[in-house]
């Protein structure tokens, strides 16, 4: 999965319990890793996407994403919350697993998009979600994600 997913882009113990704060928290990780040109620009596009349609997809998973000129380098941030996050979802159910996807507006190849597509498909699989929620370390999560995106 190359550099798209890395242990530095994970937070297994999210503190925030509302959608906006969690997106901000995870975006800071992206910024720290040098994946963004502009944190504000990226946040704006992610929130705009949330307005078009809530990205809670059911089964306790949300996939906020920004395809944005503010993204320097495609990346996936993984976040997990034991307490649950209020994603203002259709059924009000809390979100425990968050994938924040950052995709540059223009990119040379489809490679990253293909990986995100594989990841999205894998999320439909209950065993995959179970493994992600039970994994104890970031290295384990990395292994699980790499398995489905090769």
């Amino acid at each position, binding site marked *: 999965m190359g550099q798209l997913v890395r242990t530095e882009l994970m937070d297994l113990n999210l503190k925030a319990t509302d959608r906006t704060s969690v997106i901000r928290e995870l975006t800071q990780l992206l910024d720290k890793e040098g994946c963004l040109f502009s944190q504000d620009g990226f946040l704006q596009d992610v929130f705009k*996407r949330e307005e078009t349609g809530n990205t809670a997809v059911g*089964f306790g998973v949300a996939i906020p*994403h920004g395809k944005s000129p503010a993204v320097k380098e495609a990346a996936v941030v993984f976040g997990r919350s034991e307490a649950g996050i209020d994603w203002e979802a*259709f059924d009000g159910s809390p979100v425990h697993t968050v994938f924040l996807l950052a*995709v540059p507006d223009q990119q040379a190849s489809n490679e990253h998009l293909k990986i*995100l*597509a594989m990841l*999205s498909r894998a999320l439909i699989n209950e065993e995959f979600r179970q493994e992600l929620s039970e994994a104890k370390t970031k290295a384990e999560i990395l292994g699980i994600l790499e398995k489905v995106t090769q």
Partner: protein
Amino acid sequence: MKILAVTACPSGVAHTYMAAEALTKAAKQKGHSIKVETQGSIGIENAITPKDVADADIVVLTKDMAIKNRERFAGKTIINVGVGDAVRKADIIVAKAEEVIAQKGQS
């Protein structure tokens, strides 16, 4: 039953593919054959052919984005669904497809 589906979503990054996977899984669980074309940011994948259309009993289209080449399904029985519903309630959509086909058979 032969189901065709086309999925698309606003940014074409995630929902398109989740919906494709969910519909495939739900249809197969009920013993139906299914082919899903994805119209995402990668472009069109698993493209539906004229033969697929000719053989299909029903077509499921997501309605969040305009489906490209929609005219090829003219005359077919079509169900329009939200892409989010296709992700979360694929089994209900498959059940609905069964119902529509059953009703058509009676009329």
